[in-house]
C-alpha cells in the first residue's frame, strides 16, 4: 500500500465516521435529554451525560407522575396520553398495512399470472396513480371523508389507503412475473383452479417480497403526519406523530418540557428502532432493490 492510498483510506474513514456521528448523535441526544431534570438542564445545557439523572420524564410521558413530582422537575402541565396514541398508531398502521399488502398481492397475482381480457389496459390505468403526488388527492379525500361522516374515526384514517397502492401492486407483479411456471402448471394439471394456485403456490412463493412491502408500508404509515392531521382532531383516534406535535404546540416555547417531550419522542420512535434491530439488514437490501426496479 502506498502512502497516498493509505492517506486516502484514512480520509475516507474519517468522512464515514463524521457522517455516522451526525446521523446517530440526535438519537443519543433524545436519550440523554429524556433522562435529565429540566431545572438542572438549563444550568448545564452542554453536559454530554444526562443532567441529574432521573426517570421523571418517562414517568411524565407515560402519565405515571403526580403533578407534584412533575412540578419538581419543571415538567409541563400539558398532558399527552402516550399509551392511547401508541395504540392508535398500532391500529392505524397495522390495519392499513395488512389490507394494502393483501389486496395488492391478490391484484398482482391477477395481473402477473392470469390471462384475461383488458388486463394490460386495467394495469396501465392503475399505474397512472404512481405519477400523481398524494397532495392532489388529499383535500378532496378529506371532503369525501367528511361527507361520509368518517372524520375522527379509524375508518376515515384507514380507508383511503387500504385497498389500493399502485407501487405495491407494481412491485409484487414484477416479482410474480419472474416466478417459474412449472409448479403452477403441475398443479393445474392436477386440477387446481386459479384461486387455489394463488393461495397455495404463488402467494407462499412471494412471502419474501410481501414481507419487504409490509415493512416499508408499516414504516411510512406509522410516520405519516399529513393525512391523520386532516381527518382527526380528537385524542381518541390521534396517532403518535400527531400527539407529539400537538404536545409541542400546546406548550409555550419558553417553558417547554423538553425532557418529557424527548421521553415521549423516544417512546414513539421505539417501535421503529425495534423494527430496525430485527429487520435492519433486510431493510437495507430491500431499499436497494425497490430503488433499482
Amino acid at each position, binding site marked *: 500500500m502506498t502512502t497516498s492510498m493509505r492517506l486516502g483510506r484514512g480520509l475516507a474513514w474519517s468522512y464515514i465516521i463524521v457522517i455516522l456521528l451526525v446521523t446517530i448523535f440526535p438519537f443519543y441526544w433524545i436519550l440523554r435529554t429524556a433522562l435529565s431534570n429540566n431545572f438542572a438542564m438549563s444550568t448545564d445545557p452542554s453536559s454530554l451525560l444526562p443532567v441529574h439523572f432521573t426517570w421523571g420524564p418517562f414517568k411524565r410521558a407515560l402519565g405515571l407522575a403526580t403533578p407534584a413530582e412533575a412540578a419538581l422537575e419543571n415538567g409541563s402541565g400539558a398532558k399527552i396520553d402516550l399509551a392511547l396514541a401508541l395504540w392508535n398508531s398500532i391500529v392505524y398502521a397495522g390495519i392499513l398495512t395488512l389490507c394494502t399488502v393483501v389486496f395488492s398481492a391478490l391484484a398482482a397475482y*391477477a395481473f402477473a399470472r392470469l390471462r384475461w381480457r383488458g388486463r394490460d389496459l386495467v394495469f396501465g390505468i*392503475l399505474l397512472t396513480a404512481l405519477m400523481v403526488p398524494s397532495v392532489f*388527492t388529499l383535500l378532496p379525500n378529506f371532503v369525501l371523508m367528511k361527507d361520509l361522516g368518517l372524520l375522527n374515526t379509524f375508518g376515515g384514517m384507514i380507508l383511503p389507503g387500504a385497498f389500493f397502492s399502485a407501487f405495491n401492486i407494481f412491485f409484487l407483479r414484477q*416479482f410474480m*412475473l*419472474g416466478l417459474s411456471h412449472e409448479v403452477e402448471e403441475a398443479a393445474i394439471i392436477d386440477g387446481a383452479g386459479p384461486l387455489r394456485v394463488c393461495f397455495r403456490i404463488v402467494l407462499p412463493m412471494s412471502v419474501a417480497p410481501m414481507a419487504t412491502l409490509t415493512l416499508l408500508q408499516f414504516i411510512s404509515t406509522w410516520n405519516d403526519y399529513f393525512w391523520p*392531521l386532516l381527518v382527526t382532531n380528537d385524542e381518541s383516534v390521534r396517532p403518535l406523530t400527531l400527539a407529539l406535535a400537538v404536545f409541542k404546540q400546546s406548550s409555550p416555547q419558553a417553558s417547554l418540557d423538553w425532557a418529557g417531550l424527548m421521553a415521549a419522542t423516544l417512546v414513539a420512535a421505539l417501535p421503529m428502532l425495534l423494527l430496525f434491530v430485527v429487520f435492519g439488514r433486510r431493510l437495507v437490501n430491500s431499499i436497494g432493490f425497490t430503488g433499482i426496479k
Partner: protein
Amino acid sequence: MVTTVQDSSAHVVRGPATTAPPPTARRRKGPASRHNDTWIAWLLVAPAILGFGVFFAYPMLRGVYLSFTEFHILSPPVWTGLRNIQELINDGRFWHSLGVTAYFVVLTTILGVGISLLTAVVLHRLNVNTTIRGLMILPFLISGVVTALVWTWMLDPQLGIVNQLITWIFGEPIKFFGSDAWAVPTLAALNVWKSMGYNAVLIFAGLQTIPVSIYEAGRIDGASEFQMFRSLTLPLLRPILVMVVILNVISATQIFDIVQVSTKGGPADASLVLQMYIYDKAFGQFDFGYAATMSLALFLLLVAVTFTQMRMARASESDTN
C-alpha cells in the same frame, strides 16, 4: 424445481444484481381450460379497482372541479370559472411560497444528492459491511415530526447543544428557525439529514451493479481514483442518480411535516412552503376552492418538472448502452 424457485426469490429480494426479472416464460395454453379465469381475475383485482376509483380517481376529478369553485366546506361549492386562477396569478403570497419551495427543493436536492453520492461511493470503495449502511438509514425510519422535534431542541438558541458549541466558538448563537435567512436552509439541512442514508443506500445498490472488472481495467490503464469516478462511475450510475434526483424533487416539493412542526412557515412567512400555504388556506381560512386550485397548480408543476428532468437526463438509458 421448488428449490430453484426459492433461490430466485431470495435473489430478487437480496441482490440488486438480479433485479431484471427473467424473461417471462411464454405461457403455454394449459391443458386445463382457462375460460373461467376472467371472472376470478376481476374478483381479485376488484378491491384495488374499488380503492382506485373511490379514493384516487374520483377525488382527483373532484379536485379539478373544486379548483374552479368557491367552496367553504359548510355550503355546497359554487362554480366561479376562472376566478380562482385570476386570484392565484395576483396572489403575492402564492408566488412567495412557490419561491420558498423552489429554494428548499434546490438546496435539499443539491446538498442531499451530493452528500449521498459521496457517501455511497466512499462506502463502496471501503467495502463496508451492512451494519454501517444500516445505521445510516436510521433517520429514514423516524417520522418528520420526530426529526423536527429533536432538531428544534438541539438547535434551540439558549439550551440547544449545537448552539452551545456555536456560542463557544463564535461568541453568539444562531437563531436557526427564528431568522429569515436561516429558516429555509435549516429546514433543508433537516431534510437532508433525514433522507441522506436512504439515498446513499439506493446509490450504493446502483454501484454494486457496476462490474469490478471495469475498475480493474481502469487501474491497469493508470487512471486515478478521481478519473475513474468521473469517467466510469458517474456515467454508469446515471440512471439511478436521475431516479434519486426525481424522487427527491417530488418529495421535497411536497414538504410539510418538518415545516409545520418546527416553524409553521415563519418567521413572517420566511419558510412558508407551498404545502403549508395550501394547508393554511384550507384549514386555517376554510377556503377549500382556492386551496384546491393551488394543489392543482402544484400538481401541474410537478408533472412539468418531472418530465423536463426525464427528458434532460434520458433516465431510461445509461451512457454506455
